[in-house]
């Protein structure tokens, strides 16, 4: 046993070295950065060690705004995208004709460039003097007043943001869920039908438990992905997210490092660690809940 041990370590070495350089060292470094007070890029020195950076970040209105935006996006898009994907997947697996064609159509957004989709959304939803987007044209045609979803009130921007996020994350979920649904042995459905179960009961008592591990996987990765949202916001509202009031935590971290107000690695590190703590906690809760509800079959 012992002889084999060093061999195992040897095989693991490349991966460990890689992880150490690009994951573990930066992680430690981030922790160190976040504790160094008044660190200056120019001198490379700090005045002391403490929690001042966290205090600063938490009292920064831009961070609070980013935190609020991120939470809203997470709370709205994860359930909506998972639920709608489930419905679409159920639809896709129950049709017989043109199933492949529809699957391809629903998968297209996944292979489309985020920025390109963002541009399309911008054009669709904007309401400028000489460039009224299709959505607003429809609203006006129906007798409403146009709203600029891109550069207008907060709720409108948040709406289009969530709409866009759901749109972007759904293809992957649909893909995974249709294959999970396809892997359920049709005999279970036949058995349930002979046993007189209604289709809703079949869904709730058989389909859902059978694919629960997949749904749960999608919820966890959905949470993590939504917490790390940034590029989607840039695609819709441009790089100055603070001005648009649509910044996210990752956006805030980026701004603190490289943005026009940037140059504060310590604040960035503190914000990143706060995000880490949040994601960690949520994932832990998710796992705990799943242990009681998910069927691994």
């Amino acid at each position, binding site marked *: 046993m012992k002889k084999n041990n060093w061999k195992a370590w040897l095989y693991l070495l490349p991966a460990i070295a890689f992880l150490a350089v690009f994951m573990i060292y930066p992680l430690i470094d981030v922790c160190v950065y976040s504790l160094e007070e008044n660190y200056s890029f120019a001198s490379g020195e700090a005045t002391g060690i403490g929690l001042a950076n966290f205090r600063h970040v938490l009292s920064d209105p831009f961070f609070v705004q980013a935190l609020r935006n991120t939470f809203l996006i997470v709370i709205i898009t994860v359930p909506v995208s998972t639920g709608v994907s489930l419905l679409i997947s159920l639809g896709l697996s129950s049709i017989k004709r043109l199933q492949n064609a529809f699957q391809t159509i629903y998968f297209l957004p996944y292979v489309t460039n985020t920025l390109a989709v963002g541009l399309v959304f911008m054009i669709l939803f904007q309401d400028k003097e000489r460039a009224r987007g299709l959505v607003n044209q429809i609203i006006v045609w129906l007798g409403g007043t146009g709203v600029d979803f891109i550069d207008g009130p907060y709720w409108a921007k948040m709406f289009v943001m969530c709409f866009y996020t759901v749109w972007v994350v759904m293809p992957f979920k649909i893909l995974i869920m249709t294959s999970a649904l396809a892997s359920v042995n049709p005999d*279970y459905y*036949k058995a349930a039908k*002979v*046993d007189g179960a*209604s289709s809703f009961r079949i869904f709730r008592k058989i389909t859902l438990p059978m694919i629960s591990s997949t749904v749960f996987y999608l919820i966890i990765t959905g949470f993590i992905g939504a917490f790390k949202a940034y590029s989607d916001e840039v695609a819709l509202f441009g790089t100055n997210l603070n001005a648009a009031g649509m910044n996210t935590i990752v956006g805030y971290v980026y701004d603190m490092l490289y943005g026009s107000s940037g140059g504060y690695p310590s604040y960035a590190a503190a914000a990143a660690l706060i995000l880490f703590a949040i994601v960690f906690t949520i994932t832990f809760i998710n796992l705990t809940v799943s242990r009681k509800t998910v*069927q691994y079959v």
Partner: protein
Amino acid sequence: MKVVLQDLTKRFASRQEKGKDVIAVNHFDFEIPDGQLVGLLGPSGCGKSTTLNLISGLETPSEGKIFFGDRDVTQLPPEERGVGLVFQNYALYPHLTVEENIIFPLQNLKGKQKMTKEAMREKALEVARLVQIDQLMERKPRELSGGQQQRVAIARALVKIPNVLLLDEPLSNLDARLRLQTREELRRIQRDTGVTTIFVTHDQEEAMSISDLIIVMKDGVVNQIGKPQEVYDDPVNLFVAQFLGTPAINVLEGEIRDGSLYIGQEAVLPMAGKAEGPVWVGIRPEGFVLDEKGPFTCEMDRVEVMGRDVSVVCRHAKMTGRNLRAIIPAESGVRPGQREVRFSLKPYKVFVFDRESEARR
């Protein structure tokens, strides 16, 4: 409850050729009496499972009608027919316990039939006792052996007291020893409940051993219906004769002429009053009697000892397929070194079939 199939036909669109139909079930017309255990027997792909699906309502027939008793159920969905169905792979819900699996059909009951939780549990326990799995109620299906899983599946199918119990290849997923046991068990459960039971199998031994009635199918057509022994002793055509019995019946080229049945140049049996001409001759392995003056000669290959009996494997020029096999009592005194053996034939073990239609002559 008796089950009547009236001119039942099921066509599927062919996958190979567009616009062409495959007839899985071809004009079935028979009646299964109440309380019988019926074996639906045939080679794979002959439409047995489709027949079962038609009776259960999972498939709708292209033509014809199905009656349970006097009630026409042809257009009824499965849940309204009151059938219990046991799948080949059992299809037990893997995330539910044995008890939850058995209760599942009861929870689907609506309106007046609705039961309280207590009543359901009691009912479940009752059928679980019947199939002897009442000790396993809290287990998940994956913690059970194949035989136990099957019992759970049967319990689930029986819990609503179905009009008809349908089993699709019930024994094929079990190992040989368990298969024998379960076979007896199936017979017992059916006797205890008195539910009309139809099971599908490709194993003729299985069907013969427990059925009250067997239905032999080929290519979507019913060939013969009858009590197992009757079908065995009196097959209507070459297919039925070949399909029933292990070892299989020996089929030889023969000819009827001058009031005798000839195999090669040997007149093996007198056969008066039958149309002359070339025929297929089917001889059951147990239809041979070792007889030094017998009319049927063949070249001996080897002798296989089976204990009480021996199986004499021979070659014969007119034999179709593999070697000819005769089963005779061990004390008949066949010598392994012998080159040539002579037999006389038991007339009731010899069947003559038309060369063209393969129907019994």
